[in-house]
């Protein structure tokens, strides 16, 4: 049967089409008005889960605190499972789900994988934590890092050694270096070896010991370190291995002037302090830290402690919060979620009120923030405390530290 369209039917159809088109336009406008969608990638399971979960706490605090400061955004969370290949697929998934910008991913290997995905898809990526210098040496246009490279960490961290020796009037002659044998540990080792002669440090490294990042027993490694009879025990650790190492040092009665990290995680973290108790005291880590002189640092720390009582608001928390803040700040200034506008805004970033020690958050032409000095942080009365530089210090440094048997 043939059907002829009447004028009435045509009129109704035209009206309906117009309504649909208008609604479509509305949908388009509504899309443009949606807030920034930040894809957050963290190792929330796998061997780095403990730290990943710690970073996630900071993301949760940022979700509440930053909107109160006038920022508008929403976060899509993803788990990298501590594996670079999963980090890659999760980044691709977040982009498919509409993430306008990515942030993450704590670990250099995973961060590298995400950076490649971000660059291929033209989606901006802000690195919260990840220190491999090569990440910002690839000529990437969409990658920005608000974390020191391992060279910066090493340089700034090692520089603090001289400050510590000067402040306490004690100069060690030898050191043993124990380091985790992963991407981070290797790049730190390279940095330390390259910088030691340049920084005019008074001690020599007499033994270097690498160990498996997933080691469950470090008794042999510690026995080897003890056999070197060095003045100080330098470490590049992650969390679990830092605990294992300290336990073995106590058991093997291996006393040195101090256990010092030139810039690695582990010894300032909540779990380290909780598990080791009095044996966690006096451990020194030279890392970027929350600036006691910044108001935002206090506001953030208060919000963090209120949300997670008993957890230490540390470098991971601070940089993860700043990572989200940088994304939200770029969107606030760009007023757009297009990659080009966000990248331009990121390039022009200049955040003076920040959480971490150092000047404004600014990125150089490679996308690297270079205003990231290290503090000398010593565990005191169960809390990582800034002891140097003197201007920002809350307490004076203790060096040499009391032997294990004298800890109370």
């Amino acid at each position, binding site marked *: 049967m043939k059907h002829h369209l009447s004028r009435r039917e045509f009129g109704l159809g035209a009206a309906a089409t117009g309504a649909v088109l208008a609604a479509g336009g509305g949908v388009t406008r509504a899309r443009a008005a949606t807030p920034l969608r930040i894809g957050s990638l963290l190792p*929330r*399971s*796998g*061997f780095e*889960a*403990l730290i990943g*979960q710690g970073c996630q706490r900071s993301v949760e605090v940022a979700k509440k605190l930053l909107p109160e400061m006038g920022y508008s955004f929403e976060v899509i969370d993803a788990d990298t499972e501590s594996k670079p290949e999963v980090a890659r697929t999760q980044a691709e998934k977040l982009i498919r789900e509409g993430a306008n910008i990515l942030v993450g991913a704590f670990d250099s290997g995973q961060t590298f994988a995400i950076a490649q995905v971000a660059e291929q898809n033209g989606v901006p990526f802000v690195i919260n934590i990840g220190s491999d210098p090569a990440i910002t040496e690839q000529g990437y246009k969409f990658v920005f890092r608000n974390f020191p490279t391992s060279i910066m960490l090493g340089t700034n961290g090692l520089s603090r050694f001289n400050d510590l020796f000067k402040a306490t009037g004690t100069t060690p002659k030898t050191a043993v270096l124990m380091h985790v*044998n992963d991407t981070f540990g290797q790049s730190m080792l390279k940095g330390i070896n390259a910088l030691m002669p340049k920084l005019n440090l008074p001690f020599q490294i007499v033994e270097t*010991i*690498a*160990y*498996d990042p*997933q*080691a*469950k*027993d*470090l*008794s*042999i*490694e510690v*026995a*080897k370190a003890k*056999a070197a009879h060095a003045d100080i025990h330098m470490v590049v650790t992650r969390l*679990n291995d830092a*605990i*294992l190492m300290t*336990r073995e040092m*106590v*058991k*093997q*009665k291996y006393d040195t002037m101090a256990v010092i990290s030139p810039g690695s995680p582990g010894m300032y973290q909540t*779990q380290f302090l909780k*598990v080791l108790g009095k*044996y966690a005291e006096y451990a020194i880590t030279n890392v970027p830290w929350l600036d006691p002189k910044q108001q935002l640092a206090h506001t953030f720390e208060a919000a963090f402690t209120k949300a997670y009582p008993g957890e230490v608001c540390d470098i991971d928390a601070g940089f993860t919060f700043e990572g989200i803040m940088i994304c939200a700040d770029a969107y606030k200034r760009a007023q757009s979620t297009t990659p080009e506008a966000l990248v331009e805004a990121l390039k022009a970033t200049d955040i003076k009120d920040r959480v971490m020690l150092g000047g404004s958050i600014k990125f150089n032409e490679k996308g690297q923030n270079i205003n990231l000095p290290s503090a000398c942080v010593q565990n005191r009365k169960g809390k990582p405390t800034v002891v140097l530089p003197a201007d920002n210090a809350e307490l004076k440094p203790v060096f040499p530290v009391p032997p*294990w048997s004298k800890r109370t």
Partner: protein
Amino acid sequence: MLYLNIIVAGLLTGAVYGLMALGLSVIFGVIRVVNFAHGEMMVVGMYAAYLIAVETGLDPIAALPLVTAGLFLFGYILQRGLINRYIARPEHEQFLLLLAVATIITASLLMGFGPDARNVQLDYAYDSFQLGPLLLDKVRVLAALGAVLGVAALWAFFKLTRTGKAIRACADNQFGAEVVGLDVKRLYAVTFGIGAACVGAAGCLMLLLIDVQPYIATDYTLLAFIIVILGGLGSMPGALLGGLLVGVSEALSGFVVDPSLKSAFSFALLILVLLVRPQGLLGRA
């Protein structure tokens, strides 16, 4: 003297490794099923000891009989209810079944306990003995003593009890055992239970040495395989010998060569034994 300390530390750790691998060897020696969920069962034992310690304050060594009994029951039910149906099936199906069991155990532990490393705070955790020139870690000594006692108890069970002898008969000749009227299905379940109990006991002792996390299981399954293949699959003394060899090899290679190469030396030892004596050091050809 430093080397003596290192070797003794390796032997002490190796004894616990031996007890852990013993369960795998017992199960394979009798049932001829390779337990790919072995490390996961040890981690279950570790979490059980951890829970008991947290809830009641009981030391993992004191909790050992309870955990061993629990794991025996778990192994018995698992074999009777599930694995028994796969005994006559092709090996790849058994492999997939036990891999599935392993995955379920890990996922359940992850859901129940999360990914955090957990340990038991013991008063003597940091104690060590000075025995002449030897500095002995108290925890490691206790764990090794527990392991040696466990191995001795198992040896006595298989040599002196009727059930033990019946299980050995099943291992030697299943058909013959059935002909003389032994309940082979029940004995298989008991054997799997014993294997699980061994690994549960090892879990209690391992909790003294390392922190427990759901993800550590795979490494220990692999380690147990290296040990039993070294010592001879199905041989009880072989499992203990393999454990001690791996313990000492890890300690010495870590100290003399490079700690990062500890596992590589264990594998090198395994390849060497497979080349020279494929049935393992104490295995039957």
